[in-house]
């Protein structure tokens, strides 16, 4: 009796089904889509008739990268995966394309793992019909850009969870760079000769206010960039915890790069109490580090 029960349980446990793995180990992920093992297969099934790539560059850790296009009317799904990954995703096709008779629309948004190294990125796609037959494979040749922008002086603040942290840098002239003032360049005073049209580019520029809506969109990093000839002197770096977006704690890291040389770095953890007294409440940013540029 016992052996019979164990045999029945073992048999039932072996039931096959769609893979429940969300595919978090893959470097290219389509959130919410079904994962299948192995690479995207090619065959003589329905083709992808159009692949639309809006921008050829993607950054490590970037989310919501859009791929879209059309497929033959017999296609039921599009398989997509990164060349080299041991898995791919199944995305059902959409409605008939109103502009091209006999073809269906498809679209997907993928996330790229932060660990992907800069360089070429091949995304392989194939349409699949209702019988599971794959069509010819199509490859989107993309480029993975550097994780951070480049410049003469780059201060990078990154953190490890969805949260709203803000980078502040005070330059040697005392100008404070932050989300409320994203450029240290100052216009000439009244009566002075006008500045060249692109003079604003000479200041330190904050590239984004990451995590501002707590919606998890984009990379959790901000950069202060002096594209060329950063002013000599002492800089002060600070951060403000605007919101932890419900997180219990968030780890952060600050790195300062002069060209290819890392001048300094600092790391720490932001706690909920850090968000209670912040810049919005009139307090100064949390002092992180200082460094000199010669």
């Amino acid at each position, binding site marked *: 009796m016992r052996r019979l*029960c164990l045999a*029945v*349980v073992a048999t*039932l*446990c072996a*039931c*096959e*089904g*769609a*893979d*429940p*793995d*969300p595919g*978090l180990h893959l470097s290219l992920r389509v*959130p*919410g*889509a*079904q994962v*299948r093992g192995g690479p995207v297969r090619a065959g003589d099934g329905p083709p992808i008739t159009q692949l639309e790539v*809006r*921008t*050829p*560059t*993607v*950054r490590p850790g*970037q989310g*919501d*990268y*859009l791929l879209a296009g059309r497929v033959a*009317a*017999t*296609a*039921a*799904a599009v*398989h997509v995966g990164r060349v080299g990954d041991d898995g791919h995703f*199944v*995305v*059902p*096709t*959409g*409605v*008939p394309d109103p502009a091209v008779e006999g073809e*269906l629309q498809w679209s997907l948004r993928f996330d790229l793992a932060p660990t992907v190294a800069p360089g070429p990125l091949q995304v392989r796609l194939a349409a*699949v*019909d*209702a*019988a*599971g037959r794959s069509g010819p494979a199509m490859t989107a040749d993309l480029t993975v*850009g550097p994780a951070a*922008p480049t410049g003469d002086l780059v201060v990078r603040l990154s953190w490890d969870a969805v949260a709203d942290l803000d980078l502040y840098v005070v330059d040697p002239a005392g100008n404070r760079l932050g989300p409320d003032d994203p450029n240290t360049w100052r216009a000439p005073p009244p009566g002075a000769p006008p500045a060249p049209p692109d003079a604003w580019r000479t200041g330190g*520029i904050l*590239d*984004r206010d990451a995590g501002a809506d707590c919606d998890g*969109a*984009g*990379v959790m990093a901000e950069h202060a960039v002096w594209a060329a000839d950063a002013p000599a002197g002492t800089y002060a770096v600070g951060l403000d915890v605007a919101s932890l977006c419900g997180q219990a704690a968030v780890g952060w890291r600050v790195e300062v790069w002069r060209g290819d040389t890392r001048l300094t770095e600092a790391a720490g953890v932001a706690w909920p109490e850090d968000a209670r007294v912040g810049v919005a409440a009139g307090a100064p940013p949390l002092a992180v580090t200082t460094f000199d540029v010669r």
Partner: protein
Amino acid sequence: MQTDWTVHAQDSVDQLADGDGQPLNRDAFVLRRGRLRAEGEAPFVAYAVELDVNTVDGAQAGFRQVEAALRWAPGEDAALHGLEARLGAGVFATPFGHSVYVERDGERLLLERPLWADALFPGQLDVGARLDLRWQNWVHLTVAVVNGQPLGGGAFPGRDPDAAKDVVGRVATRGALGPVRLGGGVSALQGTGFHAGTPPSKERFVWRDLNEDGVVQTSEITSTPPAAGTPSETFERWGVGADLQAEVDVPRVGPLRLQLEGALATNLDRGLRPADPVTLGRDQRALGGAVTLTQAWGPLTVGGRADHYAPELDARETRAGGVVRRDETFTRWSALVAWDVGAAPDPRGRLTVEYTHLADALGRDAAGAPADLANDRVVARLQVAF
């Protein structure tokens, strides 16, 4: 007190969910229920209070049944002797079906209630008032007026966003047919659901730096025009159900028990696929049922349950350019072995091992069509009652 150990779960991975950051690991120990109950009655009043601690969604504590009642039971010399009437108010199990209203969690042999019961009445409990009439222990009528927002689910658990109330009731009877002991009832619910309106929104102009080059490009700009708020609306919902319990003593073995239960409902799902016909544009019809068969053999009990629930009979989806019917059904097959120690009213315990195979349409096959997701489980439970 019930503690579960999920010995094996096919859908368990050591990751966190993308959406809410919750663990996706299912192979874990869970304090499923830790209940402390006090109840009593006097000639004209009665009360029941039940508290619960568990670790299902992290360590949490709360109340379950909290009810006070006026009670009237004529004495032996009265004309209506045999009648017992109660008028209670507070938090109590919704009087719909045997598995929702009658069967307590500690009495049920299967680890959890049927899928339809948890979907239509998540958490069992609601706030309201009920009238309970029993006649000589063989007819039992319950009629309740409740908020219609179960404490275990819905958008406003324990609160009521609309003035209309749900009226729900069950009439049950019991008796014997030769050696077979029988019980059964029919239930019905008529109520009003709530569709939340939206606040007005301001104009938004959004630049999403898709290629992260720091340069604004026209393809990266979207604008959302301002929108007027929309008012909240209510909608009708109803459900009917029936249940039957049969028990017969098999000579030299023990009691053989059979339970049949089913429900048909419209716009009543508040747990699995919460119904909102305003958004859906049509009614959401649901159908569920379960068959449970157990055989006791001394302290040992073996059994199983076939449990089916279709939360949306008219589900549709776009596939391969056309609108097709979407399979939205859940069919759960459960098999268990339980070993009982002790018997009521003494302290007693039970060790249960249950295997569950859930056939659903939560995955996708290679062609993108809904397919069964691999989510079978083996769970062991240790239960002790004092």
